[in-house]
């Protein structure tokens, strides 16, 4: 086994054609993911945050090879997942799983819980029906449901319970990496807390690595060790959670953090209303994609695109300020 990262993403690009058909050329390209690189170690929770359309979900799908990239590579334990044929890919599939946002549409309404949870097992391992049932019962108890629930259909459960079923399904093949795409966004606050705690317990128990995709900064800060911020298809900042929260370097990260309303009536802040919308990924601005909304922009930002560079040991930023190291605490 190698000492390298579990997951290594190198310059991954995904462009979707816009319009066009079999005979006509596309009218343009949606640059959903436009050159992203990062690595995730075993047992690490890596957070991916950004607003709608920033490419975080597309990136999650690339990691699991649910879609094919336009360019770049993704290595799982050093093996490029896009170079593998179907037969070679199968053993890898067992090791990475996904949890979806919507616990209503991600479970087949006509399958019983038992069948839902063990479906990944059926396609990957040869087990008897009894062995599969035992595994399902054990997992269900791990995620806080009961053995008796195996015989029920998804509609008999609440949203939080359905999300637990989705988690049990992901765990059933003992994966090493789980991509969790907004796993608690559809849940009520008290239920969200239950599921977050469960995800943390399972991570410790199985030494799982998470790629945790969310628009909710507080949830990501709570769960993750490191956080990457995406804007219009690129990572614009990557830091430890500590640095992300206390010393953000990119003006966009700072704006995001300031926009979150704090649950504390003693600290009422004028909501930092950054003007403008996220630009279109079809026709992104020249230079830094954030410059039309950036209060710190100067000439260079409109002309040249900043790359993600190291500012301090564990802190990377793509911003021209202060010779490419972004904002400092004094700014």
């Amino acid at each position, binding site marked *: 086994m190698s000492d390298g990262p579990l997951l290594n993403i190198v310059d991954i690009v995904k462009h979707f054609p816009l319009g066009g058909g079999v005979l006509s050329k596309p009218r343009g390209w949606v640059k959903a993911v436009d050159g992203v690189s990062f690595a995730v170690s075993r047992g690490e929770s890596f957070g991916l945050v950004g*607003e709608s359309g920033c490419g975080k979900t597309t990136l999650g799908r690339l990691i699991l090879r649910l879609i094919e990239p336009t360019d770049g590579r993704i290595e799982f334990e050093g093996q490029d997942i896009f170079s593998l044929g179907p037969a070679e890919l199968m053993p890898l599939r067992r090791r990475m799983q996904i949890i979806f946002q919507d616990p209503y549409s991600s479970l087949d309404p006509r399958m019983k819980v038992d069948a839902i949870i063990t479906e990944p097992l059926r396609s990957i391992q040869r087990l008897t029906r009894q062995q599969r049932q035992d595994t399902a019962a054990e997992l269900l108890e791990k995620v806080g449901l009961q053995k008796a629930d195996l015989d029920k259909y998804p509609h008999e459960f609440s949203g939080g319970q359905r999300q637990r079923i989705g988690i049990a399904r992901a765990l059933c093949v003992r994966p090493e990496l789980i991509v969790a795409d907004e796993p608690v966004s559809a849940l009520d606050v008290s239920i*969200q*807390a239950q599921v977050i705690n469960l995800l943390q317990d399972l991570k410790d128990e199985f030494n799982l690595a998470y790629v945790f995709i969310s628009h909710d900064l507080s949830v990501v800060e709570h769960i993750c060790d490191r956080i990457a911020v995406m804007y219009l298809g690129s990572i614009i900042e990557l830091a430890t959670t500590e640095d992300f929260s206390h010393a953000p370097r990119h003006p966009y990260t700072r704006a*995001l953090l300031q926009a979150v*309303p704090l*649950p*504390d009536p003693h600290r009422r802040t004028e909501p*930092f209303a950054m003007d403008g919308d996220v630009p279109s990924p079809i026709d992104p601005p020249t230079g830094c994609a954030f410059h039309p909304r950036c209060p710190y922009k100067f000439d260079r930002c409109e002309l040249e695109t900043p790359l993600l560079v190291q500012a301090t040991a564990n802190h990377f930023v793509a911003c021209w300020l202060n010779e490419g190291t972004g904002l400092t605490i004094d700014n």
Partner: protein
Amino acid sequence: MSDKLIDIEDLRVSFHIPEGVARAVDGVNFNLAPGETIGLVGESGCGKSVTALSILGLIPAPPGKIESGKIMFNGQNLLDLDRERLRKIRGRDISMIFQEPMTSLNPVLSIGRQVAEPLMTHQGLSRAAAFEKAADWLDHVKIPAAAKRLNDYPHQLSGGMRQRVMIAMAMVCGPKLLIADEPTTALDVTIQAQILSLMVRLKEELEMSLLLITHDLGVVAQMASRVVVMYAGQIVEEAGVVDLFDYPFHPYTQGLLKSVPRAVRSGEQIKRLNEIQGTVPPLTQMIVGCKFADRCPHSFQLCREKQPTLFRIKNGHRARCWLKEYPERRRDNV
């Protein structure tokens, strides 16, 4: 003239569905003073939206039915008004904005037309005058190049822009009360900040009251002066915003506040979130005692036998919990 703009008394709304009778709103009392912002919070199905829809007479009947209660506004009971008289109030004195701006705007009418419509209906303005005023309002809610966009359709706008159009529509007649049902839930956080600051600005300009329905405790802490917490169709706690966050009385409120992941930057990061065990009971279930008893870490026998009333904790602070009468029953280690 009272100091209350709107006063809801013992409102009960139920839905007659195949599974039985769902008591969506089960005896709700609260009022709003002129210029006040109340945050109405609670989880899905607690009755917060049904309460709001009742104010505007928008409960679909059947299956919905307003069983009893009064909603007093300007000296008249809104529940007694016929459709015609209610329509004169809706959009003029009381307006509402919804969570999903795409589904609550009409996709086949231009945004100018939709903002102008209340002006033509309620103030009898001519088409030209109404469109002119609509353009002013779109500009006021910061739609760029508003005059040129009057003929745009909702699908041509982003989510944040659509919500601005909704707000302009709700505001054109200068309502006394704005009901905002999860107005920023579908929006990204930077856009949410824009919409919230717009609402604060307009509320002050128009001196109107705001009933803000949300599940987001951050939004409540930043916006509301008073907070009403609902659980399973009832108010379980009501207090000034600072009291509610600093001295929550009801175990449900306490649990809710502790289950929010606090950002690291607020300096009080918690390693493990508080969980409220279990789930909300179905609204069709008849519960004899306190509706929260099954999930409550402090519950004792009386809680399961008799429903608590809203006890006065102190001035302006009420909580529906037997712990007010039996404080020694509160456990410390939870």
